[in-house]
């Protein structure tokens, strides 16, 4: 078991070339904060990017930041916050859910797992904000794609290609992201006591209005007590975040209150509470229970997702809450992950995908962690992998067995 910790880009190239020459598959990590996500690996060697860190370019006026893959996200978020900016896609932190400390992730890991957060439904995910990459492929070749400007259609967008590739195509060495100003102010409207289906309808009305809602979540009663120190009093809470310039936030919050008056009583949370609440929703704090009970991350059409939860509840003990207007479901199972039942119901209710984000390693090795793909798509994915990493030395089997 060897861990290689390169400190220059050239050493990353050499490390991959060494692995190629040895035909020795390697695990690729930053700090290892997401080792318990995805399919477990069985490689003898590890390439850790923790030694290749640091910001290489940050121009707040140009809204652009480049950094080496091993740069800790905590450091980057502090840096941009000092300039009143943020990664607008609100990347989540899997640490708490996986029983680890928060703030351990790296920039490379963020792109490799395509992180996002509650603002996903308005601002997209990492793939929507990455502008350029430098990558060492599984061939041991360095290539670049994209650039440092927002508008760029020169050649294939391999920066997006690296997003959600879980280190199986190449090792991103340096990544350029767009950063944006932090909203001046925010508030969260809370509607109490809605059932899941009523909440889905209320969120659809809000999202379809001119209220420019920047996050919409629903916490059923048994989950609502587990955020912001129980301040939601354990009543089912439907949450709508409104953010921007103060006069606009006040105006839109007022409009939304009127629009949703028939759904139930609407309260507003102050800014600090609102910020904390959405961080906790983002990081799945309600299920950060220091156990390995299976947790699914399910993406579906918002107006269908609650039906999946209702059906599951009839047959199994399930805890669930919703983000993304109801389209993202976080599901915690009591015992068995019920993979087949979950995935069959997704197909019944309009399609989507489920990722088993938490489960004991033996379960993640035995079950498809990621949504299985139809044959032509799976074959295409495999061909893409072969074009980047023909010897299968980078994170083999991290996403799918044999890829």
């Amino acid at each position, binding site marked *: 078991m060897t861990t290689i910790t390169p400190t220059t880009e050239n050493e990353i190239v050499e490390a991959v*070339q060494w692995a190629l020459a040895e035909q020795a598959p390697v695990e690729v990590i930053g700090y290892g904060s997401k080792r318990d996500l995805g399919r477990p690996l069985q490689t003898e060697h590890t390439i850790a990017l923790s030694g290749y860190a640091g910001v290489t370019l940050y121009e707040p006026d140009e809204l652009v930041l480049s950094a080496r893959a091993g740069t800790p996200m905590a450091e980057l978020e502090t840096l941009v916050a000092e300039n009143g900016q943020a990664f607008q896609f609100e990347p989540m932190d899997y640490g708490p859910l996986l029983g680890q400390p928060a703030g351990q992730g790296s920039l490379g890991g963020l792109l490799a797992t395509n992180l996002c957060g509650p603002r996903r439904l308005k601002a997209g995910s990492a*793939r929507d904000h990455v502008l350029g990459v430098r990558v060492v492929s599984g061939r041991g070749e360095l290539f670049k794609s994209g650039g440092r400007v927002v508008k760029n*259609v020169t050649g294939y967008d391999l920066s*997006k*290609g690296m997003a959600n590739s879980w280190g199986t195509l190449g090792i991103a060495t340096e990544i350029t992201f767009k950063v944006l100003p932090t909203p001046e102010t925010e508030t969260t409207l809370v509607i109490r006591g809605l059932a899941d289906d009523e909440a889905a309808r209320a969120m659809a009305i809000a999202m379809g209005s001119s209220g420019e809602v920047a996050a919409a979540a629903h916490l059923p009663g048994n989950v609502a007590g587990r955020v912001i120190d129980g301040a939601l009093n354990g009543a089912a809470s439907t949450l709508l975040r409104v953010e921007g310039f103060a006069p606009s936030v006040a105006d839109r919050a007022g409009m939304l209150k009127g629009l949703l008056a028939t759904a139930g009583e609407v309260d507003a949370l102050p800014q600090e509470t609102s910020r904390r609440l959405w961080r906790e929703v983002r990081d799945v704090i309600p299920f950060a229970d220091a156990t390995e009970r299976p947790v699914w991350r399910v993406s579906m*059409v918002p107006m269908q997702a609650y039906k999946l939860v209702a059906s599951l509840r009839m047959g199994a003990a399930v805890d669930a809450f919703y983000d993304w207007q109801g389209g993202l479901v976080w599901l915690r199972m009591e015992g068995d992950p019920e993979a087949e039942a979950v995935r069959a119901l997704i197909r019944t209710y309009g399609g989507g995908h489920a990722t088993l984000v938490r489960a004991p390693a033996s379960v993640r090795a035995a079950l498809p962690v990621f949504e299985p793909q139809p044959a032509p798509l799976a074959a295409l994915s495999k061909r893409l992998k072969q074009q980047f990493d023909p010897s299968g030395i980078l994170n083999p089997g991290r996403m799918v067995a044999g890829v």
Partner: protein
Amino acid sequence: MSGLTMPKADEATMSRRSDIVAALRTIVPGEGVVDVTNEMRAFETDGLTAYRQLPLVVVLPQTVQQVSRVLQYCHENNVKVVPRGSGTSLSGGALPLEDAVLLVMSRFNRILEIDYPNRAAVVQPGVTNLGITKAVEHEGFYYAPDPSSQIACSIGGNVAENAGGVHCLKYGLTANNVLGLEMVLITGEVVRLGGKHLDSEGYDLLGLMTGSEGLLAVVTEVSVRILQKPTTARALMIGFPTSEEAGQCVADVIAAGIIPGGMEMMDRPAIHAAEDFVHAGYPLDVEALLIVELDGPVVEVDHLINMVEAIGRRNGATTCVVSQSEEERMAFWAGRKAAFPAVGRISPDYLCMDGTIPRKELPKVLAGMRELSDKYGLRVANVFHAGDGNLHPLILYDANIPEELHKAEDFGADILRLCVKVGGVLTGEHGVGVEKRDLMPEMFNEADLNQQIRVKCAFDDKHLLNPGKVFPQLRRCAELGRMHVHRGQVPFPDIPRF
């Protein structure tokens, strides 16, 4: 055609033409196969009209199954295929090839589903960009990306080119507004990516497809996000004595946390051409004119208009007019939107370039363009998506003067080289196509280009889809697939020691 080399037409394919036509007729009956020269003329060019070429044959399928069978036939028989939507590409992406089937998707023109609660529309690829908005606007919704050809361009073409538009600064490009695709591979296999839900598992093939210029697969269905139309929009027209001051104003607006719905800049030649043409009321004594549009709730727009006005004045604006009515707002835009035809009035021909630069480099690039203008003896007018650094220099020339097109193209290439040199890129929204194909090595080295071509190989290993576009040279997949690393020839043959 000046200087552009397309792949050598394959004589064997051309000699099989009647067989190919007959085979296509068995797949797409009736008028869906066009092989008469006069009727094929309508398809011989796209938005890059300097280049013309008749295709081998035109096929207009109507069903996914027909697309699949056409592609499967072409794959099995080694026939090249050029996909085409509405044919509005400004970079020659849909330019036919003499030995290729032109696959025209215009009969895929139906809107399949509109789902307001989930804010999605599912449409066929031949539906126009504006057609989506027209279908949902009675409910107060719209489709955000708005390339200037939106009345004609198809959503399938938008996906192929990752189309932008004036509003993409705030609302994103096509890539950020497409939720899912159905596509047919060159083998005829039908693959679905994403859907009305967000994201899909596995590699981001949706991201690779968007902007792939018809080289990877043929899109047969598109799911897009639809948004609620902003309540109101107002615009400011701000004139500056120098482009530096205008550029600083743009930077300050962004730094203040304001993301305008649109932020456009014009230089003196463009201002004058537009004003002479549409009499929009533009000031003629300024070097740079900004049009900044704020959209959203009335309260927000009023608040931001005041902020932007103050920023403009602080940066030395000599004129600053705020639209007081919808008519006035439209008048501000009339000149900008008519900039291309306006330039067409003062010059027999023009070339429209499309580089993107870091915003702060604008003064340097404009100065460089003035020098190049003197060097080539050709005029240039600039319109500029100022918020995102996307330049559209219009190079004025006369095609009737021998060699002037060639000179204009060289001038354009030099401008794009300058964009790359200051940290920018060759194309922001028009695509590489044939127009900028041979400039790709200015931005990418061999390893960069090889890895892009390898993506092509994963989708289309025979290079049958839209060959001759994007890549200056398509290397054979087998050749690119070889590994060059062998035991004993690497720097660290033993135990790693990092």
